């Protein structure tokens, strides 16, 4: 199990680091094997920072991230490489994830160099083919090509194939389909569902509530670095308790019904008169649903 316990990230800005900005604040949740957890937040909510902290790309300011009980927040060197065999990430922009100077296959090469250099050439080739086929790609279509010769969907799938080469147990998917076309999005999303069935735990970071509803078992709503609501997806979407969640859900454009007229006046990001109840602790509403609301109304 991958656990975050009261994890916070503070940035120091200004001359001599005088001012502190809290990007993530006391976030606590866990991801189980075979579970898809959606981390939903708008821009500036800190969701990408959470992902980066789990991937050890950004250091944690306070709190602990543990994998099966072992604290990983301070890992370095060989232990960190070991961590990466189990925990991997895929990012938003498929074209930015590839070094433009090299061919797309190089992402496999990097893994080979660090972890699988003992394999013979034919063993390695087989492994690459198997990984590509596991994500629904034809090896002949993808190998030996430059990134700009492949589509966004193919590039993202290659990155997932790369993650699968090691002993992947948890995947951090940060907005991985938001830059893809509608007709290919769902294929990559279904691939995540596939991984989930194989026992991989997925942290699905997104701003798009419809995607969260489709794929996830658990949903966390992140606002300005704090979790304001969390629980089973049906509970959070069906009976949203926090005002922010309610506002988000009414703003989502559906294909089945129109926006209710007059419900929640249009609010632009960064404004609004929501009460600053971000400090409220998460109250247990049911076994599977928590929200940061002040008492019972």
């Amino acid at each position, binding site marked *: 199990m991958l656990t975050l316990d009261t994890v916070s990230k503070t940035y120091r800005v200004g001359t001599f680091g005088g001012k502190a900005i809290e990007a993530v604040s006391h976030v606590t949740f866990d991801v189980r094997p075979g579970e898809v957890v959606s981390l939903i937040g708008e821009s500036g909510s800190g969701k990408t920072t959470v992902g980066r902290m789990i991937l050890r790309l950004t250091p944690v300011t306070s709190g602990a991230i543990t994998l099966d009980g072992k604290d990983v927040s301070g890992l370095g060197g060989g232990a960190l490489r070991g961590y990466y065999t189990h925990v991997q990430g895929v990012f938003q922009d498929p074209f930015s994830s590839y070094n433009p100077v090299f061919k797309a296959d190089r992402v496999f090469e990097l893994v080979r160099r660090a972890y699988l250099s003992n394999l013979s050439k034919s063993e390695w080739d087989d492994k690459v083919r198997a990984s590509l086929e596991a994500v629904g790609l034809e090896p002949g279509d993808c190998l030996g090509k430059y990134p700009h010769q492949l589509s966004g969907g193919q590039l993202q799938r290659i990155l997932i194939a790369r993650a699968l080469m090691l002993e992947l147990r948890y995947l951090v998917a940060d907005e991985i389909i938001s830059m893809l076309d509608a007709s290919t999005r769902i294929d990559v999303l279904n691939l995540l*569902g596939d991984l989930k069935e194989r026992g991989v735990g997925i942290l699905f970071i997104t701003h798009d509530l419809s995607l969260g509803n489709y794929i996830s078992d658990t949903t966390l709503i992140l606002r300005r670095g704090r979790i304001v609501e969390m629980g089973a997806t049906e509970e959070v979407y069906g009976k949203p308790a926090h005002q922010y969640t309610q506002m988000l859900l009414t703003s989502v454009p559906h294909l089945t019904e129109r926006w209710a007229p007059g419900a929640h006046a249009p609010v632009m990001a960064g404004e609004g008169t929501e009460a600053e109840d971000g400090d409220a602790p998460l109250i247990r509403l049911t076994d599977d649903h928590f929200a940061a609301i002040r008492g019972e109304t």
Partner: protein
Amino acid sequence: MSLVVDDLRVYYRTLRGDVKALDGVSFTVADGEIMGLAGESGCGKTTLGKSLIRLEGRMKHMGGTVSLEGELLPIEDDRAMAKYRFRQVSIVPQYAMSALSPTRRVGRLIADLLEARGARFETMRPELVRRLSVVGLSEDVLERYPIELSGGMKQRVVMVLSTLLDPALLIADELTSALDVSTQKAVAELLVEFRDRGFVKSTIVITHDLSILYQMADTILVMYAGKLVEKAPADAIVESPRHPYTQLLLASLPESGVRYEEERLTGIPGRPPSLLSPPTGCRFRDRCPLAFERCEEEPPFVELEPGRHVACWKAA
């Protein structure tokens, strides 16, 4: 008829040949209509939006006409179009945040823009203030620097500015794509309000997001590989799409509210054809489950019922 587009062809000239981004499109947008222009990347919707206001870079007008309010628009002539831009045809840019120059006060920016277009700031000021209040901004916004305004406020200022001279046609190109869901809804509702109040006559909203079009547009026009595929009122497109591409596209959207355990959605296998040398006949042929021999001949974009156009032999 407010906007009439007839057999418009716009290609990109590249060293490898012409990219036929827009290959013969014809449609009309009525007075007061909000038309959504939907499609995936490479379908030509952005090219169409740009052609209506400014051909840039390697875009070349290869044929066809555009008329607005009965008057032919000289889209192939950059200079001649200048007098139509901002007055009859206006565009709301994506990323409003960066559209406002950070070194000048908002009022001065607006004044400069108006003077450049031959309008007087002092005469427009009362109307400008009135419109700012419609979108919930007070007059002192004009005295502020862009950096003092929030993202949402800047978005609203830009929208007011783009529509200040009551254009007959407003083009919103991917206006909502980079926005948070709450801001997205606010912007969509503002566009509808501008139309309701008569600030703009016709609006074309370009996006890949069918669900937001369903919420705000009167009609939706779907494009694929440089051609028009289907046009119908928003309700009709979403509830009973006729073209296979539209049907498959809608079936792949999670906005329909299903969950993975209940029903697995599927995408459309394959990729759009190369626009350098597009195939003859229907361009969706290779990926269409309903394709048959007739599809080797390109289906015309015909009106099946009043207000419903489809380009498909099977649908007709």
